[in-house]
């Protein structure tokens, strides 16, 4: 059972990275990116191809994935960020779908629908299976912790303040001298890079990736993590991702009590519940489990300068 928990935690770690990346884009900057799964897929394949076809080590694959994510994110952002929010949503959604189609059809590169078998793993050779699992978990959790640290840093500095200002009303930071486009671009690209990195970790963890692994339900789960956890709150995304993975995996253990339903209905029910929870949270608790943190000033307010003049 602990091996299973290790597996679940590994998946959760990957979702945490995805959720944190989306939280930077959506929670802090207000960018509606429905293409999460596209960058995730891109990173997974880029890394897989780098390690399998070009014999790069795991770290090399990870770097290739991140660079690919940056390039794709940058191009997509240049194309669509100047335009209004709903535009970005549709274009990113289309990006994800197109990426999936390309990987499904270009067999010479990706193995097409039968997928890519990935033998490179972030483990030391010749250890037991469970030791390997722990090593993969350690790598993924390190990634998650680093991402969290990065996000907390970005959110907690004046940089994050500018992003939040852009989210609230882009005109205000613009008229105060902030180059809104550059901030948005940075936020989008950093998020894309992290999503691609998550894809790389995922690829080397599951070892077989097919385009079917990267369909819209994955994006829905990531969105749910951010919305449930609390947009704008980085720890919230961590908790949100854990909640979502728990609901998703935990529902497996409910199957015996749902004997009157067939397996198909159980799997449908799972998505009904997830979708409904998402809608309910947006409706009744838009701030999520953890509301956006209050940013306390660096200097506590002790003295109050009297009104002069």
């Amino acid at each position, binding site marked *: 059972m602990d091996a299973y928990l290790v597996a679940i935690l590994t998946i959760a770690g990957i979702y945490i990275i995805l959720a944190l990346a989306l939280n930077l884009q959506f929670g802090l900057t207000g960018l509606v990116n429905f293409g999460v799964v596209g960058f995730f897929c891109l990173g997974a394949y880029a890394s897989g191809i780098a390690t399998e076809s070009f014999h790069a080590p795991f770290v090399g694959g990870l770097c290739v994935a991140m660079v690919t994510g940056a390039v794709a994110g940058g191009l997509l952002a240049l*194309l669509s960020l100047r335009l*209004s929010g709903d535009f970005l949503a549709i274009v990113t959604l289309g990006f994800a779908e197109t990426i999936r189609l390309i990987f499904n059809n270009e067999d010479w590169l990706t193995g097409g629908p039968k997928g890519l078998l990935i033998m490179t793993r972030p483990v030391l050779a010749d250890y037991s299976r469970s030791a390997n699992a722990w090593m993969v978990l350690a790598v993924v959790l390190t990634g998650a912790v680093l991402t969290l640290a990065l996000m907390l840093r970005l959110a907690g500095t004046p940089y994050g303040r500018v992003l939040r200002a852009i989210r609230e009303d882009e005109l205000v930071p613009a008229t105060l001298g902030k180059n809104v486009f550059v901030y948005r671009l940075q936020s989008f690209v950093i998020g894309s890079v992290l999503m691609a990195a998550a894809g790389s970790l995922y690829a080397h963890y599951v070892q077989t990736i097919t385009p079917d692994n990267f369909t819209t339900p994955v994006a829905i789960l990531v969105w749910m993590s951010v919305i449930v956890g609390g947009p704008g709150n980085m720890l919230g995304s961590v908790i949100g991702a854990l909640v979502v993975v728990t609901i998703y995996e935990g529902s497996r253990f409910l199957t015996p009590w749902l004997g009157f339903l067939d397996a198909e209905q159980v799997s449908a029910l799972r998505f009904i519940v997830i979708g409904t929870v*998402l809608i309910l949270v947006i409706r009744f608790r838009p701030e999520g489990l953890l509301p956006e943190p209050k940013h306390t000033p660096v200097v506590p307010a002790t003295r109050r300068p009297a009104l002069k003049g």
Partner: protein
Amino acid sequence: MQMFINALATAAILAPAAVAFTLIFTLFRYANFAAGGFVTVGAFAAWTLNAPLGLPLWAGGVGAMGVCAGAVALSDRVVFRPLRGRSGGTLLLVSIALSFVIENIIRFCFGAQVKGFDLPLTGPMVFAGLRVPKETVWVISISLIATLAVGALLTFTPIGRALRAVADNASLANVRGLPVPGVEAFGVIVAGALFGLSGTLVGVDLAIDPNLNWAIAIPVIAAAIVGGLGSPLGAAIGAVVIGLAEELTAAHFSPTYKGAVGFVVIALVLLLRPQGLLGTKVERK
């Protein structure tokens, strides 16, 4: 030419749903991605009435329109109305979540098995070397009639006029004495019926299964966006454009990339229309 007929047949399926999508968009200013879900509901409703209950297909279609009208009205009342005033992105996310819920409710109730109408399959009629299946003739005519009927409804009837007035400027409509909530409800029901019709037409043309949801949502939304999200005529023309683009891709490129056509077209259109879906930016306060 054969290709054009085929494109028209595809367009005929998409058109009513695209018109419905446009109608909801102009009334409430949100892109309802649950469109595909509603079309699927329509297809299953028509199938239930036609195959297991043994009603004639036209009755199934009418029933589907009723069921869909109810479903759309319910979703508007329960899901979207309380969220009015939230950002477009939020509503988009909600509508995507809703489409997932709908798809899986259907899967829950009907299973993943494909279904087909109780409809004999026959060969085409041939005119001057052009093959025109009988069903295609039906699908195109019904869709054309429905689109024209909705166009006429909007253009010539008092309720249609009221609908356009409310979509144009709801607060003025209120001052001018129009029953705005009632007119909105009417618009929602018309849109729902159109989704139901599209669902029935899909069923005539395709196997009915819950996966229809995304497969149909994207081209429908693309058609509506190409059409400019304003007029039903625009949406119908948009449907023809999408139909042609898909046929061309399949014929001259690769059928496997057909799924990306809708998005590429949306991206191109929006690039030429950089103010995005909402047209002019709405003042925040």
